[in-house]
């Protein structure tokens, strides 16, 4: 694997995370519990899709085969996606969606904080831009997790169930492989494993305020970021997201 291949893979991982989660969150558009939440979710999705344009745009540039961010988003099939499994899971109820958002935002804010010091200025610039938006996302998702966790017995039970369901997907965010090793030695990105302590401190503070119990097991489902194996949910999601390009190849407006 050359350095450029590794950088390409790293950028796909960053861009596919925000693309897939951005699309998932956009599925709430028009069906959220209340209007304010609908607008908030749509705005969050929009920020993530915007960040995707930067990450995948740069990925296409680094790859050097003339693929644009749109080409990468709409013309790849499941096995070429490099997002973690956490973000491709179905939304579940509103509480589950916000729990997933919080677990992701907490990682994204930690990761982007480090990437702002990347040796690759293009990566540092995107991180600087995205981290301002993510700071706002994590503030809101954390508030909502606390509000619902420390809410009524019913909302508490739903949030605990969401955490129990999603927590076994968190560990994949901190897995390392040869791509990460190449990024570390080039000074482009940190070793994901090195983010875990900061992450744990952040989520434990919020989840304890939310009166929720963090599951003890560190077992993790994985295979998304390496492309080894996605869940069956991603394929279904792509049939929606890529429908237009599949039905009318090359369509533009």
């Amino acid at each position, binding site marked *: 694997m050359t350095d450029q291949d590794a950088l390409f893979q790293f950028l796909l991982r960053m861009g596919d995370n925000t693309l897939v989660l951005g699309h998932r969150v956009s599925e709430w558009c028009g069906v959220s519990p209340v209007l304010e939440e609908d607008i908030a979710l749509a705005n969050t*999705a929009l920020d993530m899709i915007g960040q995707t344009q930067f990450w995948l745009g740069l990925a296409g540039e680094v790859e050097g085969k003339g693929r644009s961010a749109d080409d990468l988003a709409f013309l790849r099939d499941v096995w070429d996606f490099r997002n973690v499994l956490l973000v491709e899971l179905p939304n579940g109820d509103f509480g589950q969606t916000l729990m997933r958002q919080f677990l992701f935002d907490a990682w994204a804010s930690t990761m982007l904080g480090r990437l702002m010091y990347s040796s690759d*200025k293009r990566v540092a610039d995107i991180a600087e831009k995205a981290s301002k938006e993510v700071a706002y996302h994590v503030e809101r998702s954390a508030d909502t997790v606390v509000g619902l966790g420390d809410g009524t017995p019913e909302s508490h039970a739903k949030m605990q169930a969401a955490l129990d369901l999603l927590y076994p997907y968190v560990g994949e965010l901190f897995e390392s492989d040869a791509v990460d090793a190449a990024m570390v030695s080039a000074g482009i990105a940190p070793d994901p494993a090195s983010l875990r302590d900061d992450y744990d401190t952040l989520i434990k503070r919020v989840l304890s305020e939310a009166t929720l119990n963090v599951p003890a097991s560190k077992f993790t489902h994985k295979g998304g970021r390496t492309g080894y194996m996605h869940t069956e949910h991603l394929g279904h999601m792509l049939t929606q997201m890529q429908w237009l390009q599949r039905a009318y190849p090359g369509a533009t407006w």
Partner: protein
Amino acid sequence: MTHPSTDTIWDWLDQVPDPEIPVISLVDLGIIRDVEWVKSEDGDELKITVTPTYSGCPATRIINQDIETALRKRGIDRLSLHRQLSPAWTTDWLSEKGAAKLEKFGIAPPSPKGQPERCPNCGGHDLEKTSQFGSTPCKALWRCKSCLEPFDYFKCI
């Protein structure tokens, strides 16, 4: 060949309205980061550097189109637009006249306190936040408990 000064270009751009909040200009919004004439083999080219407000702001493409249209109408035919992400846009770059126009229009301008200074409708101070997000990525929703009117707040980032 003579060409308009960069000061003149800045004035022209200050007449191009923001597509989502047309009471302020692109210059008021602080997204035009640089205007310069660059020498090239076939004559001077005008280079405009623009930074996005939010990554996913749908107005970004329209803004670029509006800049081109406005300058081409003034006779500038050699023109290039450059996207700059760093330093990332901040509401500190919103001009004072822009902030005043926002308030007159009914949008509370960003305030260093992180919340609106007063109700843009009645000037009241008894305010509450309805939602962290509003009708566009750059705004949040607030309500005035004196006049009971909801209003947009241009949030600080």
